């Protein structure tokens, strides 16, 4: 089986300081990668470099296209969830899902279903009145909007209670069986079935 | 022994929704309270209500003064660390410590020592280039600036690696022996020696 994403020899430098060097890994469909590292080790930087938000110093990032060739540019949508979740205080929970660019052309019912899956019931409340964890759930509901090939999630488990942690773990398993992969970060290995990379 | 802080019958209401009701607890010198609750259960609200940033619906918060009486107003400094850490991107790590109001009148050496304790070495970097965890360490360094009686820390352990987690645990024990108390929140019980309150 071919990997969806090949990362080769990746190095990043920020303000003249090498953050990580010569990283190599492949992301296979349905399999997960967990990047483990302490504070400031460059996990966030790595995710953003893969997605093209930061220019790496060295190395290549190659994506599989429909003809089984590896390209430098992406041919499909990926999902990225960073430290900041992109939630608008002046929109309701429902609108925060419905008016995301990924929700283009989706039916209302689909959106309701996504929100139900993550256990958000107060869908007509403004997001400004939500707690930190409830906001994170909105972001998790967004995972389900479309069939993304790869999810890049920065610290999925931080600031969550056990219920939400379980929810995520179940969702990841489910999405894995559909052939999606997760590239996640964390400070210590999680329960999720994944190959781990220490940086 | 008398408690430093007595919380009695505390209830909070936000946008007409009762967040928590009839909470009672005392904070004794050198002892810790950990408030455990899931996302949106009102942990942050509770801390802010105790500190007077939010007006509670009901109940009293009373502080011990020098003559062993309980007052409604605080007679000593407390330390509060919320979800937002109050770190200025345009100041260096050192200045972020030195120019806090709590650092009034402190010697430079003292500041250096605090930073050393939390393992921050790049003290002349601008804070804008720090990772999330490194920022949290600056905030931890601030704990050591003065002798605070009670520390109110919102989710001390989230977004931290094992090294930092250990550091905090050690610091808490050390400060406890000096008679300081911690009121902390979290999603699950931590390793810290504390009486737990579920909300």
């Amino acid at each position, binding site marked *: 089986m071919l990997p969806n994403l090949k990362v080769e020899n990746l190095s990043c430098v920020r303000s003249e300081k090498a953050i990580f060097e010569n990283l190599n890994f492949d992301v296979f469909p349905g399999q997960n990668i967990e990047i483990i590292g302490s504070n400031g080790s460059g996990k966030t930087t790595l995710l953003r470099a893969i997605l093209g938000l930061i220019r790496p110093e060295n190395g290549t990032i190659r994506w599989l296209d429909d003809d089984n060739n590896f390209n430098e540019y992406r041919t499909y949508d990926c999902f990225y969830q960073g430290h900041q979740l992109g939630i608008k205080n002046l929109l309701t929970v429902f609108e925060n899902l419905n008016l995301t660019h990924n929700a283009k052309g989706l039916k209302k019912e689909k959106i309701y279903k996504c929100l139900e899956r993550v256990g958000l019931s107060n869908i007509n409340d403004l997001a400004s009145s939500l707690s930190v964890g409830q906001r994170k759930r909105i972001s998790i509901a967004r995972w389900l909007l479309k069939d993304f090939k790869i999810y890049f999630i920065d610290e999925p488990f931080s600031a969550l209670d056990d219920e939400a942690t379980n929810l995520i773990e179940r969702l990841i398993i489910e999405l894995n069986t559909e052939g999606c992969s997760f590239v996640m970060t964390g400070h210590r290995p999680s329960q999720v079935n994944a190959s781990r990379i220490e940086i | 022994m008398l408690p430093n802080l007595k919380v009695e019958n505390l209830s909070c209401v936000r*946008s007409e929704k009762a967040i928590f009701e009839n909470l009672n607890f005392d904070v004794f010198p050198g002892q810790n309270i950990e408030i455990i609750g899931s996302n949106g259960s009102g942990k942050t609200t509770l801390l802010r209500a105790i500190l007077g940033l939010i007006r509670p619906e009901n109940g009293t918060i009373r502080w011990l003064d020098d003559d062993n009486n309980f007052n409604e107003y605080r007679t000593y400094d407390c330390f509060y660390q919320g979800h937002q850490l109050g770190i200025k991107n345009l100041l260096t790590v050192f200045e972020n410590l030195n120019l806090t109001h709590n650092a009034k009148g402190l010697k430079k050496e003292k500041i250096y020592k605090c930073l050393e304790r939390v393992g921050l070495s790049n003290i002349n970097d601008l804070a804008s280039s720090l990772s999330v965890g490194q920022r949290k360490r600056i905030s931890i360094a601030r704990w050591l600036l003065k002798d605070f009686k009670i520390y109110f820390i919102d989710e001390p352990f989230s977004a931290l690696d094992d090294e930092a987690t250990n550091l905090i645990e050690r610091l808490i024990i050390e400060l406890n022996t000096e008679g300081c108390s911690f009121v902390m929140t979290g999603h699950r019980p931590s390793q810290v020696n504390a009486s737990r309150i579920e909300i």
Partner: protein
Amino acid sequence: MGSPPLFYNWSSKIIPWLGITTLVLLSLGIYWGLFVSPIDYKQGDVYRILYIHVPSAILGESIFIFMAICGFINVIWRAKISGMMLKAAAPIGMSFTLLVLVTGSVWGKPTWGTWWVWDARLTSTLILFFIYAALIGLHSTIEDKTKADRAVSILSIVGVAIIPVIKKSVDWWQTLHQPSTFTITSSPSMSPEMYLPLLICLLGFYMFFAFSLTLNLRNEVLDRERSKAWVKQNFNS
């Protein structure tokens, strides 16, 4: 009166009375002013716009004073109902101020020859209008209504400084605008045939304010107490 359900019930009783007095006073005053009272020897019939212009001007100012008092009470004692009153009064006051500006301009065209001059009284009235706009704009940006009330209360306390300026503008600066005739200390210089209908109109305008304020306030109370039991009871049965 402090408790919302009490206010609601009490206001249902007085609303009809307020409505009726308003109607009687306004129709009497306007009829008298527009059709019965004598024609002005200088201006002809245009002057009759006075019966709208002057009462609305006085109302625009009085309502702001009323709001500032509400605001003061709200800031000091945190009486919720005074905050709601302030909120309910603001659009009414703004409308009256707009009415002064419009009637004044319409009156100015034939008598002064332009729609607008930059004279002290006109300008200070315009500033009052802007302050109303700022208050209403500020209220609309704050989601939590109680907070919005307090914010607007604070601003209204500062804003009330404009009222003496409007009042005194005709005395302090050389203006094109008429000086005051309505004063408490001396008798009016107008003829009683003109003065009396004006007084009745003014009373009518005040009653209209009381009437519309009560209506607005009822809506406001219902809106804020939407989830309370008494509202649900009232509207389900």
